[in-house]
């Protein structure tokens, strides 16, 4: 059994303290507090690298948060530990064809878990580099399968339902004005033409008042 590993996440992005107002995020005074989130796949060092790399892909700035605040590394950790990371959803009969044309999709043998483990080897110490060096490092691996997975998973972690571990406090949804699974837009769909209509977001568990279980927890 592996040693328990944790990722430290700022409490400002956990406790529902982000306030969305005119596209400006204000972090509360609790920003210095932090909590420890148990990891399922990554070691702590790996999680720090993924948190740093995903936040260069989807950075935070003075007006809005990014991948680090949204918990993207936690999302990716859970996906890799779950059925997707083990290739439960992919046809994996031989023979594989590592150099197939792009229009056939990924035809290689490695699972997402293996692709990440291999890719992380090239990013040792990445989280300790400055932003410019980090960007240079990512540019070097831009054409790799690992990077394209990391980029796609970063987007997923920004905008998935919060039950998957990312999009903490629905901050990704607030960024783009997406309200989540809103049960009825009947009165609004043919009005508000030309004006931003931004109902308060709600997550699937909030909307259904139920314990919906994500696929990574099922298999």
């Amino acid at each position, binding site marked *: 059994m592996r040693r328990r590993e944790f990722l430290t996440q700022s409490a400002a992005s956990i406790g529902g303290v982000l306030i969305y107002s005119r596209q400006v995020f204000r972090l509360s005074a609790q920003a210095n507090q932090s909590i420890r989130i148990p990891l399922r796949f990554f070691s702590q060092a790996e999680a720090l690298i993924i948190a740093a790399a995903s936040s*260069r*892909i*989807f*950075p935070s*700035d003075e007006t*809005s948060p*990014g991948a680090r605040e949204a918990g993207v590394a936690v999302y990716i950790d859970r996906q890799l530990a779950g059925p*997707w990371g083990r*290739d*439960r*959803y*992919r*046809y*994996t*009969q031989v023979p594989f*064809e590592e150099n197939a*044309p792009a*229009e*056939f*999709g*990924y*035809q290689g043998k490695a699972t997402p878990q293996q692709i990440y483990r291999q890719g992380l080897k090239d990013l040792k110490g990445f989280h300790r580099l400055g932003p410019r060096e980090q*960007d240079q490092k*990512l540019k070097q691996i831009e054409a790799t399968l690992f990077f394209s997975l990391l*980029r796609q998973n970063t*987007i*997923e972690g920004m*905008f*998935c*339902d919060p*039950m*998957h571990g990312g999009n903490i406090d629905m901050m*990704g*949804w607030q*960024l*783009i*004005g*997406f*309200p989540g*699974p*809103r*049960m*009825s*837009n*009947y009165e609004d*769909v*043919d009005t*508000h*033409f*030309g*004006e*931003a*209509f931004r109902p308060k977001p709600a997550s*699937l568990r909030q*909307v*259904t008042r*139920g314990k*919906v279980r*994500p*696929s990574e927890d099922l298999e």
Partner: protein
Amino acid sequence: MKTLPSVDVVIIGGGWTGLLMAKELGSRTALSVVVLERGGPRKTNDYGDDMDELDYTIRFRMMQDVSQETVTLRHDSSRRALPLRQHGSFLPGSGVGGAGEHWSGVCPRYLPDCFELLTHSIEKYGSKRLPEDHAIQDWGVTYEELEPHYTRVDLLLGISGKAGNIRGKQIEGGNIFEGWRSAEYPTPPTKIPYFSSMFAEAAKSLGYHPYPVPAATTSRAYTNPDGVSRSGCTYCGYCETFGCMIGAKSQPTNTLLPVIEKRKNVSIRTGAWVRRIVHDASENKGKASGVIYFDANGQEVFQPAGLVFLSSWTLNNTHLLLLSGIGEAYDPTTGKGALGRNLTHQVNFSAATAFLERPLNRFMGSGASGIMLSDLDGDLFDHSKLPFLRGGTLSARSARSLPIGEWGVVPESVKATWGPEWKKAALHYYDRTGRIGFSGEHLAYRDNYMDLDPVYKDHFGDPLLRLTLDWRENERKMADYVITKAIELAREMGAKDVTPFSGLQSYDATRYQSSHVQGGAIMGSSPERSVVNPYLQHWQLSNLFVLGASSFPQNAAANPTPTILALTYRTADAIVDRYLKNPAPLA
């Protein structure tokens, strides 16, 4: 192998066609009917908590499990095929209701001339104008014959829309180019979201004839002729790849299952994966005797039956016929054999992506709510100076507006694909981006076909189905033409930036196009060039009927579900009215 007591009817696959046939035979006859569905059970109200883009749209929770079975693809017969290792260009469903659960609900009829495409095209243009390697055929059924059944489908699903042609009388605001309809749609058009209404205005000002998309996402509460009631759409936006949380989108589980569940003579067995249709030509000439399947516990079962319906997802129909050795497999070099020929998809793409000034609130809508136009469909525009035949529809719908899939679409001037500049541009354009979609006709060609793969196996050890498929010049030139029209429309809508579709190169199995794949077990008037007769009855085994889009000789641009259901109704009538009295070939 366990042998069960014989039943009158066995139906392979519990999607739209299988459950419609089960409902018709279960209600109109006393026959014992067993539906074998390889996926899991579903109930009418199963979708209260599925509105999760990650698990349903990105991880394909409702789709066929490709880890167990997929298809292989090659672009021409000189190459080695590779398996589609993950879902991509089309999405087969699984479980009770099949792909009919996760569809968008776009419900146009086919243009009348589609059913006689070969005859029509030769009459109008001469045979020299057809592509040299085409395999176009007439269907063996006409629009006139099918119209009453289309009307039954409208009523069954409660389709929302605006008629444009009632018995020859053209009606403004509807699709004036459609084939004649015997009646108005049963429910009024859906509400129209902002982007779609902008598209309608632009289309009108350019001289087109836009109309509301015919929608199975019903505009208001509706009770169909079977007494099945459904609520009206609330435009939550979770349609395609989801089941409808309130049942406003017509699905087999909320439209057919409520009737079937009341019939004691119909049962549905889930987890029942049919491996073979059994037939013994020497002892039981011209008949199927039943099916062999693996049940949910892995037990091999023989289910004898008097009448067999093959109604799985379109490609799986051809696969099971090939595995069962029923009919002669098509050979493209000799042109002999009918099973597997005329594989077509649909020429589907976002013709123009429009970047607009104002926010669109595009989280609101449904898979089918929107506006389309048919001015460039079929043979409705002059092709005499154009380098292609046929056409398709342009539309602005609000389907697939969920954030993981839609994030990061930016004008071509933005070169970054990650980092601060990319984030800033993507944030700005996220709710200012709309797509003008094209659904175009894919002609049949001699070398687009299906057979069994010599290398790759499914998890039972049987060969996978192999697709040999690529686009031809007709599709590529049609695409180039409509892209220019879509750009004009986007500009007219006020788009400052427009990204046109990059054009059709070789068939791309990673880009979702549509789940509208056709052919393999096609219908027609000759046993040499078709697998089933115009009543979808197998030419060689008269008690075997093969339902669904596998019977289409070629794609017909529009979405296929109403046509699939209309043909199923027609077959049900022929069985109840004629076949049961005299179990013999119907044609």
